[in-house]
């Protein structure tokens, strides 16, 4: 076994030191009838690298990789080009195989990158502080709702219909157990977001209003009015950003007075990975910092007065507060946060802004091209790199059919909202810097074929 260094002689010597005659003696506490008599049958025996690689490659080959064909999926996970050096950096063994930095004297590498990450996220979101990351956007969104409840001591959260349906689903699952009340509806196929409707929902029982920006249909709207209304009722505005690259082009939620901003950081550095691991982003105003869930890295000095970083405010966490913890979460998404921050550092402000505009302009061109197709109309007045097309047919079978033709056309709203027949003709299309003009033409041609 290539990963196990002990030799049979070592084992014998060690047993002698221990004073045991056999390895079985060390398992003496396991009741005899629960001890297995040998390797579990029904499972293969050990295998070398070549055999394992062949097995895994066979599985991998049976998937349509995004890079191999025209690809337009978004809806919470976006395909961006990740610079080669990002993957090199996260594969440094000192990052990859380090533990949570509880021993700061020998973990400054991880800690400093987390401090840089927190600062980047706070600035991108336009808020005062950010934490060291969460599992993903959907769990960060739920944690924000719980945090708003802790702050306002109210249990009613108003969710925008433009919030990702899976995020809504996660919140509903959790709320059923915590008895939080959630107000939510499915979106309608209109160019305007539901901002105006949400205003009426905010009252003195509301803990927070949760708005995705840009929303699930790609629409962008100013949240300032919502923030004002929420604050007039002592409720909070939570903004959810599933595409952080957008914030290189559009105003930060914090600039519109959002109190808590959460998001999915997968777009930068992490890659698609069939949905995980991703990296949840979480920021808020300074005054709420002690109610913020998750790990936090803070600056301090060492015994010689040198600047250094430590995990801080950990008394809010489960290993100390036990049943009174702010959350049961006890990990962040360290390596994905490192990928995010490395990618962001490589971009820099100019790079991020250029990347954002490249995405947006390509999307504008693609949207106009696709809207020319007979039987296709563009829903959005405003969008970043993702927009909704309304077809004159049910989109879900078309998406499946195009996938068989090696075109991954986008996310059908029928997939996201199977119970909402009014949405069945919607198709959410994402265009990034990785999308070529030829890709757009291929999609247009295929759609023309389906809709003719």
């Amino acid at each position, binding site marked *: 076994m290539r990963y196990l260094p002990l030799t049979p002689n070592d084992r014998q010597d060690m047993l002698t030191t221990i004073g045991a005659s056999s390895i079985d003696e060390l398992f003496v506490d396991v009741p005899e009838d629960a001890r297995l008599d040998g390797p579990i049958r029904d499972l293969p025996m050990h295998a070398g690298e070549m055999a394992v690689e062949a097995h895994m490659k066979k599985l991998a080959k049976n998937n349509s990789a995004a890079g191999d064909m025209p690809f337009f999926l978004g809806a919470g996970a976006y395909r961006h080009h990740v610079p080669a050096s990002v993957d090199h950096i996260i594969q440094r063994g000192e990052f990859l195989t380090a533990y949570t930095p509880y021993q700061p004297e020998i973990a400054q590498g991880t800690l400093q990158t987390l401090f840089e990450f927190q600062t980047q996220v706070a600035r991108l979101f336009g808020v005062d502080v950010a934490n060291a990351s969460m599992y993903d956007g959907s769990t960060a969104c739920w944690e924000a709702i719980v945090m708003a409840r802790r702050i306002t001591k109210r249990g009613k959260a108003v969710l925008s219909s433009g919030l990702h349906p899976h995020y809504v689903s996660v919140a509903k699952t959790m709320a059923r157990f915590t008895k939080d009340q959630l107000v939510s509806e499915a979106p309608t196929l209109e160019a305007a977001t539901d901002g105006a409707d949400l205003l009426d929902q905010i009252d003195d029982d509301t803990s927070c209003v949760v708005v995705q920006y840009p929303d699930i249909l790609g629409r962008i709207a100013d949240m300032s009015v919502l923030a004002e209304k929420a604050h007039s009722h002592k409720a909070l505005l939570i903004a959810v950003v599933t595409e952080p690259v957008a914030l290189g082009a559009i105003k930060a939620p914090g600039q519109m007075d959002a109190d808590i901003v959460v998001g999915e950081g997968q777009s930068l550095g992490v890659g698609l990975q069939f949905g995980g691991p991703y990296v949840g982003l979480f920021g808020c105003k300074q005054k709420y910092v*002690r109610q913020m869930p998750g790990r936090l890295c803070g600056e301090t000095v060492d015994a010689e007065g040198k600047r250094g970083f430590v995990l801080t405010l950990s*008394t809010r966490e489960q290993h100390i507060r036990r049943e009174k913890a702010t959350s049961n979460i006890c990990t962040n998404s360290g390596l994905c946060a490192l990928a995010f921050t490395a990618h962001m550092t490589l971009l820099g402000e100019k790079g991020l802004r250029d990347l954002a505009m490249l995405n947006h302009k390509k999307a504008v061109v693609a949207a106009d091209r696709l809207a020319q197709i007979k039987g296709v109309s563009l829903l959005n007045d405003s969008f970043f790199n993702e927009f909704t097309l309304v077809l004159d047919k049910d989109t879900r079978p078309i998406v499946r059919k195009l996938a068989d033709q090696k075109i991954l056309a986008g996310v059908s709203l029928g997939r996201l909202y199977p119970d909402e027949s009014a949405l069945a003709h919607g198709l959410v299309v994402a265009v990034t810097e990785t999308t070529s003009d030829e890709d757009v033409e291929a999609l247009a041609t295929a759609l023309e074929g389906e809709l003719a």
Partner: protein
Amino acid sequence: MSRYYTDEHEWVDVEGETATVGITDYAQEQLGDIVFVETPETGAELAQGDDAAVVESVKAASDVYAAVSGTVVEVNDALEDEPALVNSSAEEDGWFFRVTLSDKSELDDLMDEKAYKAFVDGL
């Protein structure tokens, strides 16, 4: 003014109908460097034994229970900027909150200074 102590290491100064509550010097010594104090809200109604405040050191967060029942009339805002007051002056400047007493008979079950000292010595 008379001072009372609880076996949860809180002190209570009573002046007329008002009681001032904090944690004892012994408690701050045990907790180490205090980094944050979460005080109750003014107007909160506390019953004896309720969670009233949280005091955080670097390694632990401890609940401070309401030593007596009453309505919170004032909290020590200075602790927000300077939690270290609890370390430097636990039984004076580091007070937590004031309540108007709703049941003065509760004081009968608390300890005086001598009894508390004996209690601590016995720990």
